[in-house]
């Protein structure tokens, strides 16, 4: 759906409103919450500014519709797709027709191979968008094994499994690309990228984003709620002193403040082999969170549990070397043992004012024991949150994630954007 901006004449406010309603609808599809008032505001502003200067219109509408930097990015994409020139629109239509023709040919080829009926429409689309070499490979494989008449069922199953694997990988690639294309701004781009794919040069930028998110998470988790109110006990000294200012009349009684229960963070970070690709992010995140949190404890685990030395947490290089030297880095995962040890510690590490944050991919040995220990830790701690660096789209394929997410809140942190969004939801 595209509208040519040049077609709208300034003399017709109704036309503005009509087109802007459609534009608001597109923004809603893009994920922005747009109210009718914003559409009316946008209309008012366009009437006063006119449509001569495209950049000015874009800035004005962005100011009205987008309410955060992330929303600005979505807005820009929707705007550029909506208000396009006729020439560009025609070119896009031609390209799309060509692409669709190509897709149809590829799907026809798939039908000739006899594979189309085994695949869903989505999988057929994934096949059609495979690179040409990959499609050739699959076609050759199908030709090679299809003619085998000795055990057709066995070979058909084999061919199907090869197809399914290739298509699943392609679907994941397409999902990643769709996420990646949202990020045209290099800084915001980092927010949408899988954290395991950060290059060395991008890490400093990611650090500053991680620092912001750490501060936000710490703020949300340790916020002193219900600060208002008093303990009910009169504070005599202050009441008398304030009363003296008004000639001894106790016009306002002063009460002792409630003793706020300070919330503590306990961070449990998985440094096992399966987490190695996320290790830089995990360590950085844990170190930052520890720095912004006044009172936190950091534990690392793989096959054993290890409490991080507070001194080493002061500096990232020191912390990184410390983790690598402690002997647990890159080993197997035993979440059960780690949680059991934390629960059994004296003096108690976990209590009702503690939030336990576990950063792990949940791929652990002895799952039943891990579940039992997790439930125990959940009872002991005030709050337990699992941060999982595996993209949410893959959760359905990993059984341990399904099991653990049913037991406690699990937050996806595969991209910094998801982590930030999850952090905003923590208050709910």
């Amino acid at each position, binding site marked *: 759906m595209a509208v040519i901006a040049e077609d709208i004449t300034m003399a017709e406010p109704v036309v503005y409103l009509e087109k802007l309603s459609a534009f608001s609808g597109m923004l809603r599809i893009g994920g922005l919450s747009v109210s009718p008032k914003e559409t009316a505001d946008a209309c008012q502003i366009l009437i006063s500014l006119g449509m001569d200067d495209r950049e000015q219109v874009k800035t004005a509408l962005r100011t009205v519709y987008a309410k955060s930097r992330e929303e600005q990015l979505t807005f820009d994409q929707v705007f550029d797709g909506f208000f396009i020139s006729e020439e560009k629109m025609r070119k896009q239509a031609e390209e799309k027709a060509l692409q669709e023709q190509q897709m149809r040919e590829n799907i026809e080829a798939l039908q000739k191979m006899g594979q189309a009926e085994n695949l869903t429409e989505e999988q057929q689309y994934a096949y059609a968008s495979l690179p040409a070499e990959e499609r050739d490979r699959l076609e050759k494989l199908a030709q090679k094994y299809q003619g085998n008449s000795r055990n057709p069922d066995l070979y058909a199953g084999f061919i199907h499994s090869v197809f399914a694997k290739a298509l699943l990988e392609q679907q994941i690639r397409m999902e990643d690309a769709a996420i990646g294309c949202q990020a045209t701004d290099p800084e915001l781009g980092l927010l949408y990228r899988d954290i395991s794919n950060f290059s060395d040069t991008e890490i400093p930028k990611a650090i500053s984003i991680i620092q912001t998110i750490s501060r936000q998470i710490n703020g949300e988790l340790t916020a002193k709620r219900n600060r208002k109110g008093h303990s009910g006990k009169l504070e005599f000294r202050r009441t008398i002193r304030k009363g003296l200012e008004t000639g001894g009349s106790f016009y*306002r009684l002063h009460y002792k403040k409630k003793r706020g229960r300070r919330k503590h963070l306990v961070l449990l970070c998985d440094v096992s082999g399966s987490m190695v690709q996320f290790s830089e992010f995990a360590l950085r995140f844990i170190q930052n969170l520890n720095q912004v949190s006044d009172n936190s404890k950091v534990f690392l685990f793989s096959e054993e549990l290890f409490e991080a030395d507070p001194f080493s947490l002061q500096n990232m290089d020191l912390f990184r070397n410390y983790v690598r030297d402690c002997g647990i880095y890159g080993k197997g995962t035993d979440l059960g043992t780690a949680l059991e040890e934390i629960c059994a510690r004296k003096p108690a590490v976990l209590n009702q004012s503690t939030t336990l944050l576990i950063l792990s991919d949940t791929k652990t040995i002895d799952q039943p024991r891990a579940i039992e220990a997790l439930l125990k830790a959940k009872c002991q701690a005030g709050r337990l949150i699992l941060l999982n660096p595996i993209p949410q789209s893959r959760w359905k394929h990993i059984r341990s994630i399904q099991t653990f997410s049913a037991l406690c809140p699990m937050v996806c942190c595969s991209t910094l954007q998801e982590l930030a969004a999850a952090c905003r939801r923590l208050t709910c």
Partner: protein
Amino acid sequence: MKIEELKQKMDESHYIYDDTLATVLFVALQLGRPLLIEGAAGVGKTEIAKVMATALDRDLVRLQCYEGLDESKALYEWNYQKQLLSIQVNMGSRDSEELTRSLFSDEYLLERPLLQSIRSEKPVVLLIDEIDKADEEFEAFLLELLSEMQVTIPEVGTIRAKSVPFVVLTSNRARPLSEALRRRCAYLYIQYPDMEKELAILKAKLPHVDDQLCAQVALTVQKLRSNEAILKKPSIAETLDWAAALDALGVRELTPDALRQTAGFILKNSEDMEILAETQSKDCGCGGHCGGHHHG
């Protein structure tokens, strides 16, 4: 007001702006919406409110937010001492009901910034600075003011704005603001200025500083900001301080020594200082403007 008029007034205030900023300010003014400005510390968020006050010839009423800020500091408070004195003075001479009524009148009401801004006869610019530092309860309390331009005082009733202030809210994104607050505001995100704008700011704010030095300072700051290893990027205010300090020290050319000695004005932690020292060993960061003393 037309956008050209706004630009003209901002020019008269000697404020360096770009078309985006002018358009955003125009939209907020035109719609009568509060303007929420976000961006890193030191990019000039607060300055916008000050400049708007000058450009629109309005008073600036500022509310600095902090943790624990409540209505009594932001909106109003009763003048208890005066009320008590009045009770003691008028105890025998006035009808008790009338006395009670008179105690909750304007005479005993202490206006705080928010009330002051909406009861002002002449429209003002209201700056609610660092809203992210205030508690969520305070943020919710602001909603009535921002959307309806009115406040409710239990003893008095609803007070509607005599004049509509131009409200500017700033945030460093230390915590996410509520959707409800965001929805009521026009939004602006400010980034660090580019080389050209930074140089223009330096020249406008420090006209007495040598042009060559200004260019070297601006270039160095741009380089530091683009250096991904630097964690705390230098702000505009720091750039201005640095240029002023260099000028005060009589530096006419930014040599590696001058940069090293005054780096504390732009870099505020030891890790960044170390990175600068490393960078300096390869290149002084002045882009060759220092005359090549160190380039062998």
